[in-house]
């Protein structure tokens, strides 16, 4: 038996230990993050899957715990990402302005994750929710931009406060902060309000349209090792909230008979579809590989939301499985890019090229990740997307299905771009000779994640069986699973067969590639152009603006949402300045004037 409380306390304590050791030597602090996150992940996973987590609380005040499959699903997955990413910390820690603080906040935010998912009390959940926000908020500015942290905080705050408001409304209905009681007690108009608030919270956290503008800024500018945590792990908090809203609350809304879907869910699905399309289109345009992945997170957040909003077992399991596969894929991709970023100092595609020559392992990791993201077998992304397709088509949502397909194709387009621009192509002269493969400690997590990507694609049922437990816990019928097969609504998927077929295809292609190898490796200068030899290593290979024609179609319409928030910000500022102008001058007359007006208002009101 392992006490959750003990784990939480160990995590908190090791956070402070990391800070202290980080003061001695910054690398020590980073090593503490590895040990601590590995410990937390492995004990959670081990004791969790053997059903021996202890919920008794003896030290912490007010905190109460419960173990649910839902919570464990999220907690194990997120701590796994934390544990994997933590291997990167020692290599990056020397770049940070406040290394001790980085190590401490990294662990503290992970401790917050334990708190959020294992409590049965809304207040405790919110406490840790906010705790994660402010700890991660201070991690982000250690990267490139301070603005990123502000915008992250702003949207997180919107999400948290919407959640808080909903929590209080549920508390009023239920009389206590209990999560299950609260969700069950809410009904009538209040249920609609709570539903909307929770959805706003989920959208803000997941970065779904239209609350997405923080995603690229925060992910793009966070420290390299923290971007995968943000995108793979913390964003998924929004999915947790979305599950609560979409599954557990049934607002009494009008049911669209043709679709067998309540209006509320349908609206969420539409916004999710918009997120998919918008995220995809925006990702296609990005030059910075991290921003590109950020927009892809937005699009994948849309998939998750869409899956949950359909309210079917297949949809749910697709959504949950997509959370896993996307976390693994985006984690690996971000780590690969982080490795490139560390070795070269930039993540801008226009400044990079030919990295494959020196970093082949990183290249393979990235390749596997993008295959998964694009939903191509034999990676996990294919399975989850297949499930989601099944659910969407089953409901007959044609437009949304189009969005899903568009997203899938689009994601292939955009993830291929960094592949070509970063890894393939001509090696940049400025990196020549100094570029090396990432150190082993960084390769370990990348390889593990890639392996997981494959495993999720080949043996999905290991995971889906657990997801079935979650679904049953949420009150739905489980998805029918064979030993290796998944029963969809209109077909059976056998990932193993697909993998074997795919594997055979790859092998054949490889054989052909070897046998028919006509090309030979030539040096960069060993060529000529327009009848002249080349004497300098100028850039000959342009792989930056792949999709310029497509981009041109919508390039004028990419900033509407940002503009909206910008103008909102300006409106608040203007309002403040107007008030300042009316009430604050260094003259006493203003005060007297308003006093007279207010007295007049009262007396006038009383006399009439």
């Amino acid at each position: 038996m392992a006490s959750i409380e003990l784990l939480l306390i160990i995590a908190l304590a090791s956070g402070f230990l990391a800070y202290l050791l980080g003061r001695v030597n910054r690398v020590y602090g980073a090593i503490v993050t590895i040990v601590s996150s590995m410990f937390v992940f492995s004990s959670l996973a081990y004791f969790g899957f053997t059903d021996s987590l202890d919920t008794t609380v003896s030290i912490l005040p007010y905190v109460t715990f419960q173990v649910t499959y839902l919570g464990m699903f999220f907690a194990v997955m997120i701590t796994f990402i934390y544990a994997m990413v933590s291997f990167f910390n020692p290599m990056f820690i020397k770049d940070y302005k406040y290394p001790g603080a980085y190590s401490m906040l990294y662990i503290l935010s992970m401790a917050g994750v334990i708190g959020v998912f294992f409590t049965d009390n809304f207040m405790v959940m919110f406490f840790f929710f906010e705790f994660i926000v402010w700890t991660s908020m201070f991690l982000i500015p250690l990267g490139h931009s301070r603005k990123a942290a502000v915008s992250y905080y702003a949207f997180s705050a919107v999400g948290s406060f919407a959640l808080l408001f909903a929590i209080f409304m549920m508390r009023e209905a239920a009389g206590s902060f209990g999560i299950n009681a609260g969700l069950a007690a809410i009904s009538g108009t209040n249920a609609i309000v709570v539903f909307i608030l929770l959805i706003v919270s989920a959208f803000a956290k997941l970065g779904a349209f239209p609350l997405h503008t923080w995603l690229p800024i925060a992910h793009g500018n966070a420290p390299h090792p923290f971007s995968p945590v943000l995108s793979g792990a913390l964003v998924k908090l929004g999915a947790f909230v979305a599950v609560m809203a979409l599954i557990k609350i049934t607002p009494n809304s009008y049911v669209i008979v043709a679709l067998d879907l309540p209006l509320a869910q349908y609206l969420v699905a539409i916004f999710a579809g918009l997120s998919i399309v918008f995220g995809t289109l925006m990702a296609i345009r990005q030059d910075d590989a991290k921003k590109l992945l950020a927009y892809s997170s937005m699009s994948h957040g849309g998939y998750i939301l869409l899956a949950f909003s359909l309210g079917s077992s297949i949809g749910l399991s697709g959504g949950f499985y997509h959370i896993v596969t996307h976390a693994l894929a985006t984690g690996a991709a971000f780590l690969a890019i982080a490795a490139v970023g560390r070795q070269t100092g930039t993540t801008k595609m226009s400044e990079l090229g030919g990295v494959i020559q020196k970093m082949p392992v990183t290249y393979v990791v990235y390749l596997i990740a993008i295959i998964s993201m694009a939903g191509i077998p034999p990676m996990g992304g294919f399975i989850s997307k297949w499930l989601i397709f099944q659910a969407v088509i089953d409901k007959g949502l044609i437009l949304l299905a189009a969005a899903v397909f568009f997203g899938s194709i689009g994601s292939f387009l955009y993830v291929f771009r960094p592949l070509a621009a970063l890894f393939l192509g001509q090696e940049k002269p400025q990196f020549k000779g100094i570029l090396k493969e990432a150190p082993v400690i960084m390769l370990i997590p990348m390889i593990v994640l890639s392996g997981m990507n494959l495993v999720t694609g080949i043996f999905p049922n290991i995971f889906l069986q657990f997801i079935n437990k979650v679904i049953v816990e949420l009150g739905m019928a489980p998805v029918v699973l064979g030993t290796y097969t998944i029963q969809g609504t209109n077909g059976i998927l056998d990932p193993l067969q697909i993998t074997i077929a795919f594997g055979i295809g790859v092998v054949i292609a490889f054989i052909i590639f070897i046998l028919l190898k006509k090309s030979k490796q030539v040096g960069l200068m060993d060529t000529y152009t327009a009848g002249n030899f080349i004497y300098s290593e100028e850039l000959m290979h342009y792989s930056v603006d792949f999709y310029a024609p497509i981009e041109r179609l919508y390039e004028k319409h990419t900033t509407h949402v940002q503009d909206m928030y910008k103008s909102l910000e300006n409106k608040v500022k203007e309002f403040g300045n107007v008030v300042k102008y009316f009430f604050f001058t260094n003259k006493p007359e203003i005060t007297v004037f308003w006093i007279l007006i207010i007295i007049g208002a009262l007396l006038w009101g009383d006399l009439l």
Partner: protein
Amino acid sequence: MSAILLIVIPLLAAFLSILVKKYSANILLVVSFASVVLLNYIPLEVITIGGFAAPYGINLILDQYSLIALYAVNVLFFLVVAINCAKFKKLSSILLVALAGLNGMILTGDLFNLFVFMEVSGIAAYLMTTTNQKPLATFNYLVQGTVGSSLYLLGLILLYAMFGTLNMQDMAFQISSSGYHIAVTAFPFLLMFIGFGVEAKLLPFNSWVQGILGSSNRLTGPMIASVYAAAIGFVLGRLLTELFVFEGTLLLIVTAILGFSIVAGEAMAFGAKKVREILLFSSIAQAALVALVFLSGFTGLAALLLIANTAGKLILFLITNTATDQLGNDDISTLQGLFVNNKVVGVSFTVAVLNVLGLPMFFGFVLKMNILLEFFQTDHLLWPAVILIVSVVEGIYFIRLLLKLWFKESDLPQVEFEFTLKYVVVVVAALLILFGVYTAPVEQAADDLTAIQYIEGGNL
């Protein structure tokens, strides 16, 4: 030991200190520390002055509420004085009088006596602000303060004319037992509220704040924004809970004022470009929030919120004004990177900010949650929504400020923080964390304060 000593000792020390100018700073330090110590030894009671029981004579009311208020004010006062007394020797006597005035304001149970102490502490405050070297702002403050207290006096006299008493509790009793429609007291109540509104920085009556706090120094900033704000807040809270009955048009007007103060204060802070302006505008919003919570009847929470806010403001203003005094101005760009080399101070500042924002682990979080909970339990859904929305705005500008102060690559501002200041801010910040984590005593105190039966003050 009697609570009267809290007023008399500083006053006596003030009268004597003008003779021994040399030691006046030491006297000030000793007396302000003695007041804090003394607080531990005085019993809760109603003190009758001159042997004439209320409502005929003046009484001082020392109950749980005023005890907490006294603790807050005296401790904050001592901290501010401990840091500043050497530099502001000339003001020692005035500060002693200010201490007496503030203690008197909190303790007194008599409305006119309250006016007198309001003037005592007010005039002391005007004088303190002359050290800002902005006579115009001081003048503005003086005029507004005088107008405000005159209006308070006018309202008080109207009440006296109607109900024939000056004692607070007796007045409340007379009003409730008179059988008059509540509208008869609306006008005097509004006047008194405005009178306090000027001092308590509620929005339409506070144009002095920008001039005073916007150019404050290390003494006046923390003193006005923290110590005075605490005292005025507590007194306003007592009036709001014990005396004022707001209904109908008056309630509408007062809530409109408070709501507007909250929203506009945060909006102005959002647009501000100077650190002190951010702080002062946010303290306007906070003062209004505290008043709103008092008005809604959550006395204990409001009192604790007031303490949390004023303690936070103490840290913020101390640090900002120390830096500003050394750097010459308080533009964010000047102060940028301030904490890179002053980490201890920076962490305290950050704690104070996070506390104000109400993020978990800090005192402010516990209070904010409880306040929202109370609002929900009384079916006021509007106010939590307003509070949460402005919290987002507040969060944005504070985080923006924090990050600016923490991050800068080169050309860092050179500011020396002396040991006393560091010590004070760290201790206060540690307390804010302590009560954020160890919440049992906080909630206990809130319940106690809300539930207290005010000690019977009069013989009527």
